[in-house]
């Protein structure tokens, strides 16, 4: 990993110097690709291989909300994205001046092709489209590794920082987050046991270490309320009795119905029953409803991680 990163880094430096040498061209956006020298490209290693990416690419399409979030925080505007699930705080990207590139799972290939992008970003939900998209333009897959959530998030931020020559901004932002994470860790470690559940159409699923929400246990140090944590990695259906029996001090709830804007059976209604009322978490009013936009929709990214870590620090007080 470090080896790869140094390589990207050194290539980045190389490319940077090349770009400086060609700064005359770079400042004239009307004349793009043909005049670019080889040094303005960097090799980016990612989940599905290595891709040669133009440095500071002009037209960018992202199918990854986390990358959109990170790039926005770094001051880079993308050009196209799936506009259906744009979170409130990034709502300007739902506007008409941005290309609607399909859905989080399924790209609109024709629209993407017509936009002639210089870089396409895919991740967890859109990783399957990598093959097809890389025929259109240089594509990188920034799929997040749930089992190494924070390091993986960090790598993605650094990679984007290098591609868009925003290394300094990226470093500053990551340092800031590091401080917050330390604070959250203290809070989470002392909070007692916690159980992460998601509600969807009245059903409850439980998540443990190594799952998409597992970093709360693995990296923030929240003690899992289940001994047998390995079993609960994929969100297994559980009964209210299961929650009563694991009896967590804190119940952390992600409301999927709310995540997709469905106002029917919200998590509160699902959990408000005679069985769950018997848990320590419910009786001590220690049920923490996590904001599903960063936790479920965006999943990582500079803005979202900031929000999530803040919510854990404030919530577990």
């Amino acid at each position, binding site marked *: 990993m470090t080896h790869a990163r140094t390589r990207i880094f050194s290539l980045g430096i190389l490319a940077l110097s090349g770009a400086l040498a060609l700064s005359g061209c770079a400042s004239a956006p009307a004349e793009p690709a043909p005049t670019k020298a080889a040094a303005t490209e960097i090799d980016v290693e990612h989940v599905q291989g290595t891709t040669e990416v133009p440095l500071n690419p002009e037209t960018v399409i992202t199918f990854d909300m986390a990358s959109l979030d990170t790039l926005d925080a770094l001051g880079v505007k993308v050009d196209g994205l799936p506009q259906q699930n744009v979170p409130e705080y990034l709502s300007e990207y739902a506007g008409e001046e941005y290309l609607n590139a399909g859905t989080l799972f399924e790209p609109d290939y024709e629209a993407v092709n017509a936009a002639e992008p210089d870089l396409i970003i895919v991740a967890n939900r859109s990783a399957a489209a990598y093959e097809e998209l890389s025929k259109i333009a240089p594509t990188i897959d920034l799929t997040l590794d749930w089992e190494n959530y924070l390091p993986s998030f960090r790598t993605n931020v650094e990679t984007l920082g290098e591609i868009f020559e925003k290394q300094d901004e990226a470093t500053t932002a990551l340092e800031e987050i590091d401080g917050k994470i330390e604070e959250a860790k203290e809070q989470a470690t002392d909070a007692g046991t916690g159980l992460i559940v998601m509600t969807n*159409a009245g*059903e*409850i699923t439980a998540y443990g270490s190594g799952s998409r929400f597992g970093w709360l246990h693995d990296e923030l140090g929240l003690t899992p309320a289940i001994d047998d944590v390995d079993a609960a990695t994929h969100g297994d259906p559980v009964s209210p009795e299961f929650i009563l029996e694991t009896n967590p001090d804190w119940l952390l709830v992600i409301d999927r119905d709310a995540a997709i804007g469905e106002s029917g059976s919200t998590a509160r209604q699902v959990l408000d029953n005679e069985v769950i009322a018997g848990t320590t978490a419910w009786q001590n009013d220690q049920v923490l409803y996590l904001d599903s936009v960063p936790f479920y929709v965006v999943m990582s990214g500079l803005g979202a991680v900031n929000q999530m870590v803040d919510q854990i620090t404030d919530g577990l007080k």
Partner: protein
Amino acid sequence: MRQKSRRTWSRHRSALLLTAAGIAVVLLAALSTFIGVSDVSPLSILEGGPDGKAAQLLVVSRLPRTLALVLTGIAMSIVGLIMQMLVRNKFVEPSTTGTAESAALGLLVVTIFAPTLPLFGKMVVAAVFALAGTGLFLLILRRIPVRSIVLVPLVGIMLGGVIGAVTTFFAYRLDLLQTLGTWMTGDFSGILRGRYELLWLALGMTVIAWIAADRFTVVGLGQEFTTNLGLHYGRVLALGLTIVSVVTAIVIVTAGVIPFLGLIVPNIVSIARGDNVRRSIPWVAMLGAGFVLVCDIIGRVLRFPYEIPLGIVVGVIGSVLFLYLLLRRPSRAH
């Protein structure tokens, strides 16, 4: 004389067997009641007293779940039997005629346009859609000249596929795929007191079906035949379809689709006990309840303390049995 005594004996034996089956279902229900994550056993209930945690869980969580399972098993199996009588084909049931898919489409429509509607309202909309879907199935059937045994359920499965595709398309566009997924797989993990009571209505419909069973058999023989016997064809058909649709909608709203249940249970009963509908109905009810209880126990025990949804367990066992019934001896089906 001898003939008569043999018949009496056979009736006795039959009653005896039915009682034994009834006892088996009660035992299964008891077993189901005492399986779960918390410690609820006759002993812990005695120790804790009537206000103890075990006794409370029994009332709030265990009994409702077991009751919901028994009610669903009985209702879906008998609904399957009614469909088979109405269409005169042994391979139909709500999940092979587009009924379940139509109900799910109805539920999707409610979720999109009136998500705050109470459960009963959702059930009504789902039932109306189920009724329309089942009616469409019957209309298509009437226009098909060759009505071979296998063709009828195939038409139903295709119709279900088309309706399912429409539902999936809108669910996909509106990001409701996972929600749709929970409707399409029956799951009893969330059943508690206050969240299953609609199923009693399903049982009520089933009792009506039980009383009217003979009429459905007659309607299956055709309009002319029915009218000749002095029955109102349209009315009986409408009654049957309404029962099927309402029961399917109730089960989907409370737990989700349980595939093949209404198909395999009546077929097994027919193989074992013959085709006298009035006599086989108690068997269908009994076997339906027992089968659902067994499948739910499997789903709860295999990955304890997590659960495998009932719909998946029934689907796996049911599709194997379905294939077996299809390949067995086609001549047995009418």
